[in-house]
């Protein structure tokens, strides 16, 4: 048995989340009369426990288990923490919402936790099978969540579109995996593989069945992952889906599933294919790196530019934030192109906190049924509901990248890493990329500030009564604000942790 390395500790976080999901459903089914809040409470406890489990795993340097399906390295744990943070915040901001919207509570939290489980597997995966599975768990549960408000046409539409496009892109991913599987067949070993470490080894040693097949497979996986993280031109689904989905779910989609997709994306492309600007391989490795890097650069530029420019002309806040999150995927890609997953991880950590914060407020202001999400609905609310408006301004400015907030540190780190990567690799395309990123950031100020303008500068267009803020949501907001500021002002500890994590991953990679 030990041959396959069964190690339940190594999947403890995933075990906990999935178990808790099941428990919630059972509790929910058993106790209709019990305050529905209990489901939320249970999930919070479960997520906290999962987080503890993640922490307990810290320090296992690239230990693998379950026939090397799972790898426990800092990359995994760091991303796991990001997902858990997302999940906790989402639970907090949707506790009241689920009740207000009168939606099935138990299933809601169960699905959230399942999705989280899938995400956790995606970061823990050391095998394309696990990545595929994790991705599907996440996707399928979020398909459901998008359509969760069944009576709402927008929610339906969101679900349909997400499902069609999502499963379509999954097919591409799968086909890509098949190609990779085929390409990695080693005549010598008489085996093909889906194990990431083996793939890396075979690519770098050039023991391949077919090189074009590898490249085509990589390309198709790029399409699949590109779709999941919503990079142009595969971003196309996200504005519609984000706008139509219930607000907390939009928050979840734009943060959690995006971060998870990035985790898998990084795991495959950076940690396995090492397809980055800095790594300098020869042969297949080299050409894979070159094409991927170039493709990613183009995609990143497109993503940032489209995201930002189209966001300018939006009138719906959710949709604007959707485009904003497309743009942010572009910035994160910059870090990825730099070959530095740490900066991407930090970027995503910052981004998820800020974005959930922003969506939380959008959710509060939208009221029941997501009715008030136009920018005009925000007119003049600034001084009537100053706490919310200030918090939203903070989040928006942070998204724009104002210093002293997480958004700035994140962008700064990403750009810095990309610049340095460009300098060391002598690839001036990266410098161009950074400059374009920076210009895009400037453009983004315009639309983020539009909301601020509406809130504080414009005269109220209609009667506005300050909405009541549930305690749970307030807690979530405060956490988000604290997180935003903490990562912006005192990012030292997190960065230190990441840095050492990165060093270890790099060392492991060399082995």
């Amino acid at each position: 048995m030990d041959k396959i390395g069964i190690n339940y500790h190594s999947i403890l976080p995933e075990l906990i989340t999935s178990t808790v999901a099941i428990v919630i459903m059972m509790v929910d089914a058993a106790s209709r009369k019990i305050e529905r809040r209990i489901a939320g409470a249970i999930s919070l406890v479960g997520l906290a426990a999962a987080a503890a489990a993640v922490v307990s795993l810290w320090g296992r340097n690239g230990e693998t288990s379950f026939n090397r399906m799972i790898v426990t390295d800092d990359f995994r744990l760091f991303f796991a923490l990001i997902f858990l943070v997302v999940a906790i915040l989402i639970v907090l901001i949707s506790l009241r919402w689920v009740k207000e919207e009168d939606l099935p509570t138990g299933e809601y939290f169960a699905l959230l936790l399942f999705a989280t489980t899938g995400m956790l597997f995606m970061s823990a995966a050391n095998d394309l099978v696990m990545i595929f599975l994790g991705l599907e768990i996440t996707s399928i549960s979020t398909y459901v969540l998008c359509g969760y408000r069944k009576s709402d046409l927008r929610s339906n539409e969101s679900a349909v579109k997400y499902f069609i496009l999502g499963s379509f892109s999954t097919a591409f991913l799968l086909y890509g995996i098949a190609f990779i599987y085929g390409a990695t067949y080693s005549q010598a070993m008489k085996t093909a593989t889906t194990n990431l470490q083996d793939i890396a080894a075979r690519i770098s040693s050039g023991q391949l069945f077919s090189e074009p097949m590898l490249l085509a497979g990589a390309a198709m996986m790029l399409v699949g992952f590109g779709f999941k993280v919503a990079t142009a031109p595969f971003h196309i689904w996200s504005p519609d889906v984000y706008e139509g989905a219930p607000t907390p779910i939009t928050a979840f989609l734009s943060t959690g599933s995006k971060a998870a997709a990035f985790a898998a994306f990084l795991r495959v492309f950076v940690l396995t294919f090492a397809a980055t600007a800095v790594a300098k391989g020869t042969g297949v490795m080299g050409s894979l790196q070159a094409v991927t890097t170039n493709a990613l650069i183009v995609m990143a530029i497109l993503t940032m530019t489209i995201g930002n420019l189209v966001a300018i002309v939006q009138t719906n806040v959710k949709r604007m934030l959707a485009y904003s999150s497309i743009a942010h995927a572009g910035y994160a890609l910059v870090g990825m192109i730099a070959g530095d997953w740490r900066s991407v991880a930090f970027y995503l950590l910052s981004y998820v906190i800020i974005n959930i914060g922003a969506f939380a407020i959008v959710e509060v202001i939208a009221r029941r049924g997501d009715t008030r999400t136009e920018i005009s609905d925000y007119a003049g609310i600034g001084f009537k509901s100053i706490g919310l408006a200030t918090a939203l301004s903070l989040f928006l400015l942070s998204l724009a990248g104002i210093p002293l907030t997480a958004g700035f540190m994140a962008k700064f780190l990403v750009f810095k890493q990309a610049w340095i990567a460009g300098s060391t690799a002598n690839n001036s395309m990266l410098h161009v990329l950074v400059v374009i990123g920076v210009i895009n950031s400037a453009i983004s100020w315009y639309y983020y500030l539009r909301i601020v303008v509406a809130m504080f500068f414009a005269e109220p267009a209609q009667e506005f009564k300050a909405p009541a803020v549930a305690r749970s949501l307030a807690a979530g907001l405060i956490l988000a604000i604290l997180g935003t500021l903490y990562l912006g002002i005192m990012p030292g500890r997190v960065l230190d942790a990441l840095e050492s994590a990165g060093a270890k991953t790099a060392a492991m990679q060399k082995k």
Partner: protein
Amino acid sequence: MEQTLFIIFAVIAVASALNILIQRNPLYSALSLIVTLASLSALYLTLHAQFIAAIQVVVYAGAIMVLFVFVIMLLNEPKDVPHIEKHKWLRYLAIPFAGLLIAEMFYALPLDKQIAFPSIPAEQADTAVGTTWNIGTALFTDYLLPFEVTSVLILMAVVGAMVLARREGD
């Protein structure tokens, strides 16, 4: 002989796959897909993947497609709604896109790479990779975790489908 079989099933598969696109009624499309799946199952057999071939029929053509057909019957879209073809341009895209995609795939696939199918003596047929034994063993050893995780996936899908499909107020 195997080549003949292959050609027969391949033609059936492709033809019925095309039929999916040609049929306007989703029910016929579904039935076409079943034919395709069945012919694929046959092809799996030619690859000595008995287990997969079996569940292809049982699970896929059986369970999943039944579900489809069921839903199609259930929803029974009103026929009298005249359908104006709104986005014809997508159709015109189909040909070049399909052509390009095929071309790219064929360019990428190792069509020139000849690799012999591992010849297994008849007496050792049960050692072929595709046997239930082999698959089962792998499933509960090397692929234990994915196998277990699929259960989570299924459970989740059940929950999700139930939430969405049940009527309000249930």
